[in-house]
């Protein structure tokens, strides 16, 4: 019995077996024409890198949850690679033109010269739109939430505006804004602002009276009250809106770039789909998936850190 997982052996388990299977697949001849003979270098480098990280974490004996996370990520990557290569190059079950093998996709991904520029462009667009929504949304939400004048009217308005699919802003943005990049930024701003604003407003309105009374008898000034009392007290509520806004942003980022962009990962996919270049389309899809996973992971880490005081 393994003390970390409670069930599987540390060195003979599904992850190790998947890695070995991937190697055993290598000598099997390809049924497709486009694939290189012999060892699939990019595939095996990727597989080996994730496998070594897994082993390192395993041997270094980090906390249980780090180990489990690494193990499941490694297992997923290896399983996807294995299944993918079997369905494409090794058997030809999937149409070669639509579903290139992992080796072809990975080679394209790591040698594509315009990809880094497009990724950077998307990240900048996302950063500008989302961060400004964050700043304005949290600021306006907490100022209006703190003031006694506004009652439920704001909640009704924001509930309505939140329900509008942000994609409808695209035609207006294209018509009104001078440059393509600002279209994507604007649409991301619009799609993440409302959830962030309304959750902040609701959170701040709902701060428990006992905290406000404590702050009052301590004579805490306006800004200190906002930063040290009201925002922390409504933080978990605010994070709900931030995560929702982020999810909208990802959807809108690629949509806006595909509809009206001239750069970015959405545009990359759109551009190559005009040529039916499915290798690059898959590269684009993978890159988007990876970026979203990394950002979501970092934000959830940040959330856990900022809310570490909450009793579990």
């Amino acid at each position, binding site marked *: 019995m393994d003390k970390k997982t409670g069930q599987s052996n540390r060195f003979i388990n599904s992850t190790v077996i998947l890695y070995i299977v991937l190697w055993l697949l290598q000598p099997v001849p390809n049924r497709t024409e486009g694939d290189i003979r012999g060892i699939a270098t990019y595939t095996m480098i990727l597989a080996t890198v994730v496998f070594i990280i897994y082993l390192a974490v395993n041997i270094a004996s980090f906390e249980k949850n780090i180990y489990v996370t690494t193990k499941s990520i490694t297992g997923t990557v290896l399983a996807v690679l294995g299944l993918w290569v079997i369905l494409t190059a090794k058997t030809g079950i999937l149409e070669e033109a639509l579903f290139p093998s992992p080796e072809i996709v990975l080679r394209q991904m790591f040698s594509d010269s315009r990809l880094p520029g497009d990724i950077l462009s998307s990240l900048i667009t996302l950063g500008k739109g989302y961060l400004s929504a964050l700043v304005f949304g949290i600021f306006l939400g907490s100022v209006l939430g703190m003031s006694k004048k506004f009652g439920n009217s704001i909640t009704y308005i924001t509930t309505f505006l939140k329900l509008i699919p942000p994609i409808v802003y695209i035609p207006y943005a294209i018509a009104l804004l001078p440059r393509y990049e600002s279209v994507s930024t604007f649409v991301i701003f619009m799609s993440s602002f409302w959830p962030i604003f309304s959750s902040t407003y609701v959170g701040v309105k709902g701060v428990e009276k006992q905290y406000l009374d404590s702050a009052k*008898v301590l*004579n805490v000034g306006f800004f200190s009250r906002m930063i040290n*009392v009201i925002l922390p007290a409504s933080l978990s509520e605010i994070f709900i809106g931030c995560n929702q806004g982020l999810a909208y942003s990802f959807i809108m980022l690629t949509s806006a770039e595909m509809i009206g962009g001239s750069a970015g990962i959405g545009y990359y996919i759109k551009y190559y789909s005009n040529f039916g270049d499915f290798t690059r389309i898959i590269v684009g899809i993978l890159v988007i998936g990876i970026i979203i996973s990394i950002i979501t992971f970092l934000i959830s880490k940040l959330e856990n850190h900022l809310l570490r*005081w909450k009793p579990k």
Partner: protein
Amino acid sequence: MNKIEIDHLSLDYAEKKGSFTALQDVSLTVKEGEFVSIIGSSGCGKSTLLSVLEGLNHPSSGTVKINGEPVKGCGIDRGVVFQQYSLFPWMTARNNVAFGIKQSRKELSRAERLQIADEYLKKVGLDNFGNKYPGQLSGGMQQRVAIARALAMDTDILLMDEPFGAIDPKNRTALWELLLELWENDSEKKKTVLFVTHDIDEAIFLSDRIIMMDSAPGRVSAEIEVPFRRPRIRTELLRSKEYNFFKNNLLNAFYNEEEEVEEDNHYIESYIDKIAL
């Protein structure tokens, strides 16, 4: 000099239909440096009375003055310990105390504030808990942090609402002594303390004067000077005849106020026997 002057104070809470009179015609003065306890049955308006002094509620009629000035709102001359937990759960115990110090003693640097915070946490017996969040502390420990914060803020006036209610007897007696020590010796000026409690021994041991309140509507029913000299030695005082005589009278007065409770000397005597043990 009168530090606190309450003159014909009434307070009505607005309710869905009409209003509820929580305090009616309460008049009370507390001298500078005086330690005054308030006892009275649950719901008689003790917390409400303190809330007016804290500046959180406003009189419906009558006046409340501190240092001769009508109370306009909250002020940093008053240190407050609420009946319910008053800590910020997102700050560690040390930061909660330091945050309070920051509000009342702006001249101190951050390092000094943290040092004082640690000092006071030690005084309330929580030296190893500075880095814990309130959610990781027991109810009594949280209350001790709140007490440490109020004491560390070094205010002229302390308004304490059943601060020791949730604390075990051993820590409680230690806190009595700590509170008296800080009240008498900590700064040049003696602090003025208004202290709500349900514990008669606590009220007698700590105070110069005891205010009894009665309910429906909340009002002051009696004021009793505590005749014992200071410094009071707790163990000696509790054993003395005078103490038990005084306490007996106090309980008599207290139960006579309560209409529901039958006048029954046997009951009172056996009650006294129980606590004297």
